[in-house]
Protein backbone atom coordinates (compact mmCIF):
# COMPACT_ATOMS: atom_id res chain seq x y z
CA UNK A 1 0.00 0.00 0.00
CA UNK A 2 1.31 3.39 -0.92
CA UNK A 3 0.08 6.18 1.33
CA UNK A 4 0.23 9.53 -0.42
CA UNK A 5 1.46 12.66 1.40
CA UNK A 6 -2.23 13.62 1.67
CA UNK A 7 -2.98 10.30 3.38
CA UNK A 8 -4.73 8.55 0.51
CA UNK A 9 -4.15 4.80 0.24
CA UNK A 10 -3.14 3.62 -3.19
CA UNK A 11 -3.27 -0.04 -4.22
CA UNK A 12 0.01 -1.01 -5.88
CA UNK A 13 0.26 -4.05 -8.13
CA UNK A 14 3.84 -4.33 -9.31
CA UNK A 15 3.49 -5.66 -12.83
CA UNK A 16 7.05 -6.85 -13.32
CA UNK A 17 9.27 -8.41 -10.67
CA UNK A 18 11.80 -11.25 -10.55
CA UNK A 19 13.14 -13.80 -8.11
CA UNK A 20 16.23 -14.83 -10.00
CA UNK A 21 19.39 -16.77 -9.36
CA UNK A 22 22.19 -15.26 -11.42
CA UNK A 23 24.92 -16.47 -9.07
CA UNK A 24 28.17 -17.93 -10.42
CA UNK A 25 27.06 -21.36 -9.11
CA UNK A 26 24.04 -21.26 -11.41
CA UNK A 27 25.84 -19.81 -14.44
CA UNK A 28 26.37 -22.31 -17.20
CA UNK A 29 28.88 -20.28 -19.21
CA UNK A 30 30.27 -16.82 -19.93
CA UNK A 31 26.90 -15.73 -21.32
CA UNK A 32 25.26 -16.34 -17.95
CA UNK A 33 27.87 -14.16 -16.30
CA UNK A 34 27.56 -11.42 -18.90
CA UNK A 35 23.78 -11.46 -18.68
CA UNK A 36 23.62 -10.78 -14.94
CA UNK A 37 26.51 -8.31 -15.27
CA UNK A 38 24.46 -6.42 -17.81
CA UNK A 39 21.46 -6.34 -15.46
CA UNK A 40 23.75 -5.06 -12.73
CA UNK A 41 24.90 -2.30 -15.03
CA UNK A 42 21.26 -1.28 -15.54
CA UNK A 43 20.87 -1.28 -11.76
CA UNK A 44 23.91 0.89 -11.12
CA UNK A 45 23.35 3.03 -14.21
CA UNK A 46 19.86 4.25 -13.33
CA UNK A 47 19.35 3.84 -9.56
CA UNK A 48 19.79 6.67 -7.07
CA UNK A 49 23.13 6.21 -5.27
CA UNK A 50 21.53 5.38 -1.94
CA UNK A 51 19.60 2.49 -3.51
CA UNK A 52 22.62 0.60 -4.85
CA UNK A 53 23.21 -3.04 -3.89
CA UNK A 54 26.45 -4.91 -3.83
CA UNK A 55 27.02 -7.31 -6.66
CA UNK A 56 26.79 -10.49 -4.62
CA UNK A 57 23.35 -9.69 -3.26
CA UNK A 58 22.22 -8.65 -6.72
CA UNK A 59 23.29 -11.97 -8.21
CA UNK A 60 21.24 -13.96 -5.71
CA UNK A 61 18.95 -12.54 -3.06
CA UNK A 62 16.69 -14.41 -0.66
CA UNK A 63 12.92 -14.76 -0.65
CA UNK A 64 12.96 -12.63 2.52
CA UNK A 65 14.91 -9.89 0.73
CA UNK A 66 12.33 -9.90 -2.02
CA UNK A 67 9.44 -9.73 0.42
CA UNK A 68 11.09 -7.02 2.47
CA UNK A 69 11.90 -4.82 -0.52
CA UNK A 70 8.52 -5.13 -2.21
CA UNK A 71 6.05 -5.23 0.68
CA UNK A 72 7.66 -4.04 3.91
CA UNK A 73 10.08 -1.33 2.83
CA UNK A 74 8.34 -1.01 -0.51
CA UNK A 75 4.74 0.01 -1.26
CA UNK A 76 3.66 -3.06 -3.26
CA UNK A 77 0.42 -4.81 -2.31
CA UNK A 78 0.92 -7.53 -4.87
CA UNK A 79 3.51 -8.35 -7.49
CA UNK A 80 3.69 -10.34 -10.70
CA UNK A 81 6.67 -12.68 -10.81
CA UNK A 82 7.63 -13.46 -14.36
CA UNK A 83 9.48 -16.67 -15.09
CA UNK A 84 12.52 -16.49 -17.35
CA UNK A 85 14.45 -19.63 -18.19
CA UNK A 86 17.49 -18.74 -20.31
CA UNK A 87 18.40 -22.42 -20.14
CA UNK A 88 21.34 -21.95 -22.49
CA UNK A 89 22.91 -19.62 -19.91
CA UNK A 90 21.83 -20.94 -16.48
CA UNK A 91 21.91 -24.48 -15.09
CA UNK A 92 18.55 -24.32 -13.29
CA UNK A 93 17.16 -21.46 -15.33
CA UNK A 94 17.41 -17.76 -14.43
CA UNK A 95 14.12 -17.76 -12.54
CA UNK A 96 12.11 -20.86 -13.25
CA UNK A 97 8.49 -21.28 -12.25
CA UNK A 98 9.28 -23.60 -9.31
CA UNK A 99 11.56 -20.97 -7.80
CA UNK A 100 8.85 -18.32 -8.21
CA UNK A 101 6.19 -20.65 -6.83
CA UNK A 102 8.30 -21.35 -3.73
CA UNK A 103 8.23 -17.68 -2.76
CA UNK A 104 4.54 -17.33 -3.67
CA UNK A 105 3.75 -20.25 -1.39
CA UNK A 106 5.82 -18.84 1.43
CA UNK A 107 3.95 -15.51 1.28
CA UNK A 108 0.38 -16.34 0.20
CA UNK A 109 -1.87 -13.95 -1.75
CA UNK A 110 0.93 -11.53 -2.56
CA UNK A 111 2.18 -12.92 -5.81
CA UNK A 112 0.88 -13.73 -9.24
CA UNK A 113 3.32 -16.17 -10.83
CA UNK A 114 3.51 -16.26 -14.58
CA UNK A 115 4.92 -19.14 -16.57
CA UNK A 116 7.09 -19.17 -19.64
CA UNK A 117 7.55 -21.43 -22.64
CA UNK A 118 9.59 -21.60 -25.79
CA UNK A 119 7.56 -22.30 -28.96
CA UNK A 120 10.68 -23.69 -30.63
CA UNK A 121 10.34 -26.71 -28.35
CA UNK A 122 7.30 -27.73 -30.43
CA UNK A 123 5.15 -30.44 -28.81
CA UNK A 124 7.12 -30.13 -25.58
CA UNK A 125 6.11 -26.48 -25.32
CA UNK A 126 2.45 -27.44 -25.63
CA UNK A 127 2.86 -30.13 -22.98
CA UNK A 128 4.60 -27.65 -20.72
CA UNK A 129 1.74 -25.15 -21.05
CA UNK A 130 -0.68 -27.91 -20.00
CA UNK A 131 1.62 -28.79 -17.11
CA UNK A 132 1.87 -25.18 -15.86
CA UNK A 133 -1.89 -24.69 -16.08
CA UNK A 134 -2.73 -27.93 -14.30
CA UNK A 135 -0.02 -27.68 -11.66
CA UNK A 136 0.07 -23.95 -10.95
CA UNK A 137 -3.09 -22.58 -12.56
CA UNK A 138 -1.16 -19.80 -14.26
CA UNK A 139 -3.04 -16.77 -15.64
CA UNK A 140 -0.19 -15.39 -17.69
CA UNK A 141 3.15 -16.08 -19.31
CA UNK A 142 6.28 -14.12 -20.04
CA UNK A 143 7.78 -14.34 -23.51
CA UNK A 144 11.41 -13.67 -24.25
CA UNK A 145 11.67 -13.62 -28.02
CA UNK A 146 15.44 -13.09 -28.04
CA UNK A 147 16.16 -16.19 -25.96
CA UNK A 148 18.76 -18.56 -27.33
CA UNK A 149 17.78 -22.14 -28.03
CA UNK A 150 20.62 -24.17 -29.49
CA UNK A 151 21.29 -22.84 -32.97
CA UNK A 152 18.37 -20.41 -32.88
CA UNK A 153 19.02 -16.94 -31.49
CA UNK A 154 15.44 -15.74 -31.44
CA UNK A 155 11.85 -16.21 -32.59
CA UNK A 156 8.80 -14.14 -33.47
CA UNK A 157 5.35 -14.00 -31.91
CA UNK A 158 3.78 -14.75 -35.28
CA UNK A 159 5.83 -17.87 -36.02
CA UNK A 160 3.47 -20.80 -36.72
CA UNK A 161 4.84 -22.72 -33.73
CA UNK A 162 4.15 -19.73 -31.48
CA UNK A 163 0.59 -19.47 -32.79
CA UNK A 164 -0.03 -23.09 -31.75
CA UNK A 165 1.06 -22.18 -28.23
CA UNK A 166 -1.09 -19.05 -28.09
CA UNK A 167 -4.10 -21.02 -29.34
CA UNK A 168 -3.61 -23.34 -26.41
CA UNK A 169 -3.16 -20.44 -23.96
CA UNK A 170 -6.40 -18.93 -25.23
CA UNK A 171 -8.19 -22.26 -24.84
CA UNK A 172 -6.87 -22.84 -21.31
CA UNK A 173 -7.64 -19.30 -20.14
CA UNK A 174 -4.03 -18.14 -19.88
CA UNK A 175 -5.02 -14.66 -20.93
CA UNK A 176 -2.08 -12.40 -20.20
CA UNK A 177 0.91 -12.62 -22.50
CA UNK A 178 3.78 -10.46 -21.26
CA UNK A 179 6.39 -9.87 -23.93
CA UNK A 180 9.84 -8.41 -23.45
CA UNK A 181 10.15 -5.78 -26.13
CA UNK A 182 12.69 -3.37 -24.87
CA UNK A 183 16.36 -2.67 -24.70
CA UNK A 184 18.00 -5.71 -26.15
CA UNK A 185 19.96 -7.49 -23.50
CA UNK A 186 20.29 -10.13 -26.18
CA UNK A 187 20.35 -8.21 -29.40
CA UNK A 188 21.34 -11.19 -31.44
CA UNK A 189 18.38 -11.40 -33.65
CA UNK A 190 17.44 -8.09 -35.16
CA UNK A 191 13.77 -8.98 -34.72
CA UNK A 192 14.31 -8.65 -31.01
CA UNK A 193 14.32 -4.90 -31.60
CA UNK A 194 11.15 -5.04 -33.52
CA UNK A 195 7.64 -4.81 -32.11
CA UNK A 196 5.82 -5.50 -35.36
CA UNK A 197 5.17 -9.15 -34.57
CA UNK A 198 2.97 -7.89 -31.70
CA UNK A 199 0.68 -6.35 -34.29
CA UNK A 200 0.05 -9.72 -35.98
CA UNK A 201 -0.32 -11.70 -32.77
CA UNK A 202 -2.61 -9.16 -31.08
CA UNK A 203 -4.85 -8.98 -34.15
CA UNK A 204 -5.03 -12.76 -34.48
CA UNK A 205 -5.58 -13.41 -30.76
CA UNK A 206 -8.17 -10.86 -29.70
CA UNK A 207 -9.01 -12.88 -26.59
CA UNK A 208 -5.51 -12.49 -25.16
CA UNK A 209 -4.01 -9.40 -23.53
CA UNK A 210 -0.58 -8.45 -24.82
CA UNK A 211 1.46 -6.62 -22.22
CA UNK A 212 4.54 -5.18 -23.88
CA UNK A 213 7.18 -4.79 -21.22
CA UNK A 214 9.37 -1.72 -21.57
CA UNK A 215 6.89 -0.29 -24.12
CA UNK A 216 9.10 -1.42 -26.96
CA UNK A 217 11.74 1.17 -26.08
CA UNK A 218 13.77 2.24 -27.97
CA UNK A 219 10.96 1.73 -30.46
CA UNK A 220 8.36 3.78 -28.61
CA UNK A 221 6.76 5.20 -31.76
CA UNK A 222 6.22 1.75 -33.27
CA UNK A 223 4.82 0.50 -29.99
CA UNK A 224 2.45 3.48 -29.63
CA UNK A 225 1.24 2.98 -33.17
CA UNK A 226 0.41 -0.68 -32.58
CA UNK A 227 -1.04 -0.18 -29.09
CA UNK A 228 -3.29 2.59 -30.42
CA UNK A 229 -4.66 0.32 -33.14
CA UNK A 230 -5.00 -2.81 -31.03
CA UNK A 231 -7.34 -2.56 -28.04
CA UNK A 232 -5.70 -5.59 -26.38
CA UNK A 233 -2.13 -4.24 -26.32
CA UNK A 234 -0.78 -2.73 -23.07
CA UNK A 235 2.50 -1.10 -22.10
CA UNK A 236 4.62 -1.99 -19.05
CA UNK A 237 6.67 0.91 -17.64
CA UNK A 238 9.66 -1.13 -16.41
CA UNK A 239 12.97 0.46 -17.54
CA UNK A 240 11.17 3.63 -18.71
CA UNK A 241 10.24 4.65 -15.16
CA UNK A 242 13.74 4.75 -13.57
CA UNK A 243 14.56 7.70 -15.86
CA UNK A 244 12.27 9.66 -13.52
CA UNK A 245 15.30 9.96 -11.22
CA UNK A 246 18.22 10.62 -13.56
CA UNK A 247 16.36 12.41 -16.36
CA UNK A 248 12.89 13.47 -15.19
CA UNK A 249 12.19 15.63 -18.25
CA UNK A 250 12.92 12.70 -20.48
CA UNK A 251 10.56 10.49 -18.50
CA UNK A 252 8.00 13.27 -18.94
CA UNK A 253 8.32 12.97 -22.69
CA UNK A 254 7.87 9.19 -22.62
CA UNK A 255 4.81 9.27 -20.38
CA UNK A 256 3.31 12.15 -22.40
CA UNK A 257 3.65 10.09 -25.58
CA UNK A 258 2.06 7.07 -23.91
CA UNK A 259 -0.85 9.03 -22.46
CA UNK A 260 -1.44 10.84 -25.73
CA UNK A 261 -1.41 7.71 -27.89
CA UNK A 262 -2.53 4.73 -25.84
CA UNK A 263 -4.28 6.48 -22.92
CA UNK A 264 -4.25 5.98 -19.14
CA UNK A 265 -6.05 2.61 -19.07
CA UNK A 266 -3.30 0.65 -20.79
CA UNK A 267 -0.15 1.65 -18.91
CA UNK A 268 1.16 -0.69 -16.17
CA UNK A 269 3.64 0.05 -13.41
CA UNK A 270 6.49 -2.41 -13.00
CA UNK A 271 9.64 -2.10 -10.89
CA UNK A 272 11.62 -4.79 -12.72
CA UNK A 273 12.80 -5.84 -9.26
CA UNK A 274 15.65 -6.55 -8.42
CA UNK A 275 17.03 -4.27 -11.10
CA UNK A 276 15.18 -1.51 -9.29
CA UNK A 277 13.24 -1.42 -6.02
CA UNK A 278 9.65 -0.13 -6.02
CA UNK A 279 9.83 2.31 -3.08
CA UNK A 280 11.64 5.16 -4.77
CA UNK A 281 9.96 4.51 -8.12
CA UNK A 282 6.45 4.81 -6.67
CA UNK A 283 7.30 7.83 -4.52
CA UNK A 284 8.81 9.66 -7.45
CA UNK A 285 5.97 8.72 -9.78
CA UNK A 286 3.40 10.01 -7.31
CA UNK A 287 5.28 13.31 -6.98
CA UNK A 288 5.75 13.68 -10.75
CA UNK A 289 4.05 16.14 -13.08
CA UNK A 290 4.62 16.35 -16.82
CA UNK A 291 6.51 19.59 -17.56
CA UNK A 292 4.15 22.17 -19.05
CA UNK A 293 5.88 22.61 -22.41
CA UNK A 294 6.00 18.84 -22.98
CA UNK A 295 2.34 18.49 -22.06
CA UNK A 296 1.44 21.33 -24.42
CA UNK A 297 3.15 19.53 -27.31
CA UNK A 298 1.01 16.48 -26.63
CA UNK A 299 -2.48 17.89 -26.43
CA UNK A 300 -2.18 18.99 -22.80
CA UNK A 301 -2.01 15.47 -21.34
CA UNK A 302 -1.65 15.41 -17.55
CA UNK A 303 -0.56 12.77 -15.07
CA UNK A 304 -3.38 13.24 -12.58
CA UNK A 305 -3.71 11.37 -9.27
CA UNK A 306 -6.52 9.36 -10.79
CA UNK A 307 -4.32 8.29 -13.69
CA UNK A 308 -1.41 7.47 -11.39
CA UNK A 309 -3.69 5.20 -9.37
CA UNK A 310 -4.66 3.34 -12.53
CA UNK A 311 -1.05 2.94 -13.60
CA UNK A 312 0.12 1.81 -10.16
CA UNK A 313 -2.37 -0.97 -9.76
CA UNK A 314 -5.90 -0.71 -11.09
CA UNK A 315 -5.01 -1.45 -14.70
CA UNK A 316 -3.10 -4.63 -13.86
CA UNK A 317 -5.78 -5.66 -11.36
CA UNK A 318 -8.34 -5.51 -14.16
CA UNK A 319 -6.23 -7.80 -16.37
CA UNK A 320 -5.85 -10.37 -13.59
CA UNK A 321 -9.39 -10.09 -12.19
CA UNK A 322 -8.14 -8.90 -8.83
CA UNK A 323 -10.88 -7.54 -6.56
CA UNK A 324 -9.01 -4.52 -5.25
CA UNK A 325 -11.45 -3.66 -2.45
CA UNK A 326 -11.43 -7.24 -1.16
CA UNK A 327 -7.64 -7.44 -1.29
CA UNK A 328 -7.26 -4.12 0.49
CA UNK A 329 -9.55 -5.33 3.29
CA UNK A 330 -7.73 -8.64 3.53
CA UNK A 331 -4.28 -7.05 3.65
CA UNK A 332 -5.26 -4.53 6.30
CA UNK A 333 -6.69 -7.34 8.44
CA UNK A 334 -3.39 -9.25 8.15
CA UNK A 335 -0.55 -6.79 8.50
CA UNK A 336 2.57 -7.89 6.72
CA UNK A 337 5.55 -9.26 8.52
CA UNK A 338 8.36 -11.62 7.74
CA UNK A 339 7.15 -14.00 10.44
CA UNK A 340 3.81 -14.42 8.68
CA UNK A 341 4.49 -17.88 7.25
Amino acid at each position, binding site marked *: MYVTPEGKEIFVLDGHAHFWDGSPENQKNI*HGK*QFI*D*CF*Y*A*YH*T*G*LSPKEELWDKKKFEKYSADDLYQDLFIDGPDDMAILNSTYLSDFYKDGFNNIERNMSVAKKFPNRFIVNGAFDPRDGEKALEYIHFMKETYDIKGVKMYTAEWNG*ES*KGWRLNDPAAYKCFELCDKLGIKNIHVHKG*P*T*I*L*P*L*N*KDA*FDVHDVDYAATDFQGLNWIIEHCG*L*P*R*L*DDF*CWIATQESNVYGGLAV*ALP*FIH*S*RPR*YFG*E*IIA*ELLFWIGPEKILFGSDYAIWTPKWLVEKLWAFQIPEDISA*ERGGVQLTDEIKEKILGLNAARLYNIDVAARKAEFSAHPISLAAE
Partner: protein
Amino acid sequence: MTAPIHIATATLVSALDEQAPLEQVWARLDLVMDPELDEPVTDMGFIEAVSITSTPDQNTSTVHVSFRLPTYWCSPNFAFLMAEGIKRQIEVLPWVAQAVVTLQDHMAAEEMNAAINAGASFGSVFADLHPDEDLAALREKFDIKAFQRRQEVVIKAMITMGFLPAEILTMPRALVEIAEFTDPETIRQKARYLAILDEKRLAPSPRDLAFPTYQGTPIDDYATYMGLLRSVRINMEFSGSLCRGLKRSRYQEADLSGDVPILVDFTTRTPTHACR
Protein backbone atom coordinates in the same frame (compact mmCIF):
# COMPACT_ATOMS: atom_id res chain seq x y z
CA MET B 1 28.28 32.31 -52.38
CA THR B 2 30.07 29.61 -50.47
CA ALA B 3 28.33 28.21 -47.46
CA PRO B 4 30.21 28.79 -44.20
CA ILE B 5 30.28 25.08 -43.57
CA HIS B 6 32.53 24.60 -46.61
CA ILE B 7 34.98 27.18 -45.34
CA ALA B 8 34.97 25.45 -41.98
CA THR B 9 35.72 22.11 -43.61
CA ALA B 10 38.57 23.56 -45.66
CA THR B 11 40.09 25.12 -42.55
CA LEU B 12 39.83 21.86 -40.73
CA VAL B 13 41.60 19.97 -43.51
CA SER B 14 44.56 22.35 -43.73
CA ALA B 15 44.88 22.34 -39.96
CA LEU B 16 44.98 18.56 -40.07
CA ASP B 17 48.16 18.56 -42.14
CA GLU B 18 50.02 20.33 -39.40
CA GLN B 19 48.79 18.09 -36.62
CA ALA B 20 50.85 15.36 -35.05
CA PRO B 21 49.93 11.91 -36.44
CA LEU B 22 48.16 10.83 -33.28
CA GLU B 23 46.04 13.99 -33.25
CA GLN B 24 45.17 13.42 -36.88
CA VAL B 25 43.93 9.95 -36.01
CA TRP B 26 41.78 11.29 -33.18
CA ALA B 27 40.37 13.98 -35.48
CA ARG B 28 39.33 11.27 -37.95
CA LEU B 29 37.82 9.21 -35.11
CA ASP B 30 35.69 12.22 -34.16
CA LEU B 31 33.96 11.72 -37.51
CA VAL B 32 32.87 8.16 -36.73
CA MET B 33 29.39 8.07 -35.25
CA ASP B 34 27.66 5.51 -33.13
CA PRO B 35 25.00 4.91 -35.78
CA GLU B 36 22.21 4.34 -33.31
CA LEU B 37 22.90 7.50 -31.30
CA ASP B 38 24.39 9.86 -33.91
CA GLU B 39 27.13 10.78 -31.45
CA PRO B 40 30.87 10.47 -32.13
CA VAL B 41 32.43 7.25 -30.83
CA THR B 42 35.06 9.47 -29.21
CA ASP B 43 32.49 11.44 -27.20
CA MET B 44 30.87 8.19 -26.13
CA GLY B 45 34.23 7.06 -24.77
CA PHE B 46 34.25 3.92 -26.90
CA ILE B 47 37.85 4.31 -28.09
CA GLU B 48 40.08 2.41 -25.75
CA ALA B 49 43.54 2.89 -27.28
CA VAL B 50 45.27 4.25 -30.37
CA SER B 51 48.82 3.45 -31.41
CA ILE B 52 50.91 3.89 -34.53
CA THR B 53 53.65 1.62 -35.81
CA SER B 54 55.83 2.75 -38.70
CA THR B 55 57.91 0.90 -41.26
CA PRO B 56 61.69 1.38 -40.94
CA ASP B 57 61.72 3.92 -43.77
CA GLN B 58 58.95 5.85 -41.93
CA ASN B 59 56.99 6.22 -45.16
CA THR B 60 53.93 4.29 -44.19
CA SER B 61 52.35 3.46 -40.92
CA THR B 62 49.86 1.07 -39.44
CA VAL B 63 47.36 2.51 -37.00
CA HIS B 64 45.94 0.25 -34.31
CA VAL B 65 42.65 1.26 -32.74
CA SER B 66 40.90 -0.75 -30.09
CA PHE B 67 37.36 0.05 -29.00
CA ARG B 68 34.74 -1.35 -26.69
CA LEU B 69 31.05 -0.94 -26.24
CA PRO B 70 28.68 -0.54 -23.30
CA THR B 71 27.75 -4.21 -23.15
CA TYR B 72 29.02 -7.58 -24.19
CA TRP B 73 25.76 -7.90 -26.13
CA CYS B 74 25.75 -4.68 -28.16
CA SER B 75 24.31 -5.49 -31.52
CA PRO B 76 26.95 -6.94 -33.86
CA ASN B 77 25.59 -5.03 -36.85
CA PHE B 78 25.99 -1.68 -35.06
CA ALA B 79 29.44 -2.70 -33.86
CA PHE B 80 30.35 -3.67 -37.40
CA LEU B 81 29.25 -0.28 -38.77
CA MET B 82 31.43 1.47 -36.20
CA ALA B 83 34.46 -0.76 -36.79
CA GLU B 84 34.11 -0.25 -40.52
CA GLY B 85 33.75 3.51 -40.02
CA ILE B 86 36.89 3.64 -37.89
CA LYS B 87 38.91 1.73 -40.46
CA ARG B 88 37.64 3.82 -43.36
CA GLN B 89 38.14 7.19 -41.66
CA ILE B 90 41.70 6.42 -40.60
CA GLU B 91 42.74 4.99 -43.92
CA VAL B 92 41.80 8.34 -45.50
CA LEU B 93 45.00 9.75 -43.98
CA PRO B 94 47.69 9.67 -46.70
CA TRP B 95 50.43 8.33 -44.46
CA VAL B 96 48.38 5.39 -43.21
CA ALA B 97 48.98 2.11 -45.01
CA GLN B 98 46.51 0.19 -42.92
CA ALA B 99 44.24 0.59 -39.93
CA VAL B 100 43.83 -2.44 -37.71
CA VAL B 101 40.66 -2.30 -35.64
CA THR B 102 40.09 -4.40 -32.55
CA LEU B 103 36.75 -4.69 -30.79
CA GLN B 104 37.23 -5.76 -27.17
CA ASP B 105 35.06 -7.52 -24.60
CA HIS B 106 32.29 -8.39 -27.01
CA MET B 107 30.51 -11.67 -27.61
CA ALA B 108 31.32 -11.55 -31.32
CA ALA B 109 34.73 -9.88 -31.00
CA GLU B 110 36.75 -12.62 -32.64
CA GLU B 111 34.64 -12.98 -35.78
CA MET B 112 34.14 -9.23 -35.99
CA ASN B 113 37.83 -8.38 -35.83
CA ALA B 114 38.75 -11.02 -38.39
CA ALA B 115 36.05 -9.80 -40.75
CA ILE B 116 36.80 -6.09 -40.47
CA ASN B 117 40.52 -6.43 -40.95
CA ALA B 118 40.13 -8.83 -43.86
CA GLY B 119 37.62 -6.50 -45.52
CA ALA B 120 34.92 -9.18 -45.40
CA SER B 121 31.27 -8.22 -45.56
CA PHE B 122 29.00 -8.33 -42.55
CA GLY B 123 26.63 -10.75 -44.22
CA SER B 124 29.37 -13.28 -44.96
CA VAL B 125 30.38 -13.47 -41.31
CA PHE B 126 27.08 -13.09 -39.49
CA ALA B 127 24.73 -14.85 -41.85
CA ASP B 128 23.46 -17.11 -39.06
CA LEU B 129 22.84 -14.34 -36.54
CA HIS B 130 21.45 -11.79 -38.94
CA PRO B 131 19.86 -13.57 -41.85
CA ASP B 132 18.98 -11.25 -44.70
CA GLU B 133 20.70 -8.35 -42.98
CA ASP B 134 21.16 -5.53 -45.43
CA LEU B 135 23.78 -3.30 -43.89
CA ALA B 136 23.34 -0.61 -46.55
CA ALA B 137 19.64 -0.37 -45.71
CA LEU B 138 20.49 -0.22 -42.02
CA ARG B 139 23.00 2.56 -42.65
CA GLU B 140 20.36 4.48 -44.58
CA LYS B 141 17.89 4.05 -41.73
CA PHE B 142 20.39 5.53 -39.31
CA ASP B 143 21.17 8.38 -41.71
CA ILE B 144 17.50 9.30 -41.74
CA LYS B 145 17.36 9.32 -37.94
CA ALA B 146 20.54 11.40 -37.68
CA PHE B 147 19.14 13.89 -40.19
CA GLN B 148 15.85 14.15 -38.31
CA ARG B 149 17.41 14.51 -34.90
CA ARG B 150 19.78 17.28 -35.98
CA GLN B 151 16.97 18.98 -37.87
CA GLU B 152 14.70 19.05 -34.82
CA VAL B 153 17.34 20.85 -32.76
CA VAL B 154 17.78 23.52 -35.42
CA ILE B 155 14.05 23.99 -36.04
CA LYS B 156 13.38 24.37 -32.33
CA ALA B 157 16.22 26.88 -32.05
CA MET B 158 14.75 28.94 -34.91
CA ILE B 159 11.34 28.87 -33.22
CA THR B 160 12.97 30.05 -29.98
CA MET B 161 14.48 32.93 -31.97
CA GLY B 162 10.96 34.03 -32.83
CA PHE B 163 10.24 32.45 -36.22
CA LEU B 164 6.76 31.06 -36.74
CA PRO B 165 6.01 27.48 -37.80
CA ALA B 166 4.74 28.74 -41.18
CA GLU B 167 8.07 30.49 -41.74
CA ILE B 168 10.00 27.32 -40.93
CA LEU B 169 8.23 25.53 -43.78
CA THR B 170 9.46 28.02 -46.39
CA MET B 171 12.71 29.21 -44.82
CA PRO B 172 15.73 29.27 -47.17
CA ARG B 173 18.96 27.61 -46.15
CA ALA B 174 20.82 30.93 -46.19
CA LEU B 175 18.77 32.15 -43.24
CA VAL B 176 19.80 29.21 -41.09
CA GLU B 177 23.43 29.67 -42.09
CA ILE B 178 23.55 33.24 -40.84
CA ALA B 179 21.53 32.53 -37.69
CA GLU B 180 23.74 32.93 -34.63
CA PHE B 181 23.12 30.73 -31.63
CA THR B 182 24.68 30.86 -28.20
CA ASP B 183 23.82 27.43 -26.83
CA PRO B 184 26.82 25.16 -27.54
CA GLU B 185 24.67 22.12 -28.32
CA THR B 186 22.64 24.13 -30.86
CA ILE B 187 25.83 25.43 -32.48
CA ARG B 188 27.19 21.89 -32.70
CA GLN B 189 23.97 20.47 -34.13
CA LYS B 190 23.58 23.31 -36.64
CA ALA B 191 27.00 22.52 -38.13
CA ARG B 192 26.13 18.82 -38.16
CA TYR B 193 22.74 19.52 -39.75
CA LEU B 194 24.26 21.61 -42.53
CA ALA B 195 26.87 18.89 -43.06
CA ILE B 196 24.23 16.20 -43.54
CA LEU B 197 22.24 18.47 -45.86
CA ASP B 198 25.39 18.73 -47.97
CA GLU B 199 26.20 15.05 -47.75
CA LYS B 200 22.71 14.11 -48.93
CA ARG B 201 22.58 17.03 -51.40
CA LEU B 202 19.27 18.10 -49.92
CA ALA B 203 19.71 21.86 -50.14
CA PRO B 204 22.62 22.66 -52.43
CA SER B 205 21.68 26.29 -52.98
CA PRO B 206 21.27 28.98 -50.30
CA ARG B 207 17.78 29.59 -51.70
CA ASP B 208 16.76 25.95 -51.22
CA LEU B 209 14.48 25.00 -48.34
CA ALA B 210 16.43 24.87 -45.09
CA PHE B 211 14.09 22.23 -43.70
CA PRO B 212 13.07 19.68 -46.28
CA THR B 213 12.09 16.15 -45.32
CA TYR B 214 14.77 13.48 -45.83
CA GLN B 215 13.03 12.64 -49.11
CA GLY B 216 13.65 16.22 -50.25
CA THR B 217 10.01 17.28 -50.22
CA PRO B 218 8.69 20.30 -48.30
CA ILE B 219 7.26 19.64 -44.83
CA ASP B 220 3.54 19.14 -45.24
CA ASP B 221 2.08 19.78 -41.78
CA TYR B 222 4.32 21.35 -39.15
CA ALA B 223 2.74 19.80 -36.03
CA THR B 224 2.61 16.28 -37.48
CA TYR B 225 6.17 16.51 -38.72
CA MET B 226 7.47 17.76 -35.37
CA GLY B 227 5.66 14.86 -33.69
CA LEU B 228 7.63 12.51 -35.90
CA LEU B 229 10.93 14.23 -35.09
CA ARG B 230 10.10 14.09 -31.41
CA SER B 231 9.48 10.35 -31.44
CA VAL B 232 12.75 9.80 -33.30
CA ARG B 233 14.57 11.79 -30.62
CA ILE B 234 12.86 9.96 -27.74
CA ASN B 235 14.01 6.61 -29.13
CA MET B 236 17.55 7.79 -29.75
CA GLU B 237 17.85 9.41 -26.33
CA PHE B 238 16.68 6.23 -24.67
CA SER B 239 19.47 4.27 -26.28
CA GLY B 240 21.96 7.06 -25.66
CA SER B 241 21.19 7.37 -21.95
CA LEU B 242 21.27 3.63 -21.44
CA CYS B 243 24.52 3.27 -23.37
CA ARG B 244 26.24 5.97 -21.35
CA GLY B 245 24.95 4.55 -18.07
CA LEU B 246 25.83 0.98 -18.96
CA LYS B 247 29.27 1.87 -20.18
CA ARG B 248 29.99 3.86 -17.03
CA SER B 249 28.88 0.93 -14.91
CA ARG B 250 30.69 -1.70 -16.93
CA TYR B 251 34.03 0.03 -16.78
CA GLN B 252 33.62 1.63 -13.35
CA GLU B 253 33.83 5.12 -14.74
CA ALA B 254 31.45 6.37 -12.08
CA ASP B 255 31.62 10.06 -11.39
CA LEU B 256 33.52 10.13 -8.14
CA SER B 257 33.64 13.87 -7.78
CA GLY B 258 33.17 14.61 -4.10
CA ASP B 259 33.61 10.97 -3.19
CA VAL B 260 36.67 9.33 -1.77
CA PRO B 261 37.92 6.82 -4.34
CA ILE B 262 38.21 3.27 -3.14
CA LEU B 263 40.77 0.65 -4.10
CA VAL B 264 38.67 -0.82 -6.90
CA ASP B 265 38.70 2.55 -8.64
CA PHE B 266 42.44 2.46 -8.96
CA THR B 267 42.58 -1.12 -10.11
CA THR B 268 39.77 -1.32 -12.65
CA ARG B 269 38.74 2.22 -13.43
CA THR B 270 39.66 3.23 -16.92
CA PRO B 271 40.42 6.82 -17.81
CA THR B 272 38.76 6.73 -21.19
CA HIS B 273 40.08 10.00 -22.48
CA ALA B 274 43.42 10.04 -20.74
CA CYS B 275 45.04 8.24 -23.63
CA ARG B 276 44.07 11.01 -25.94
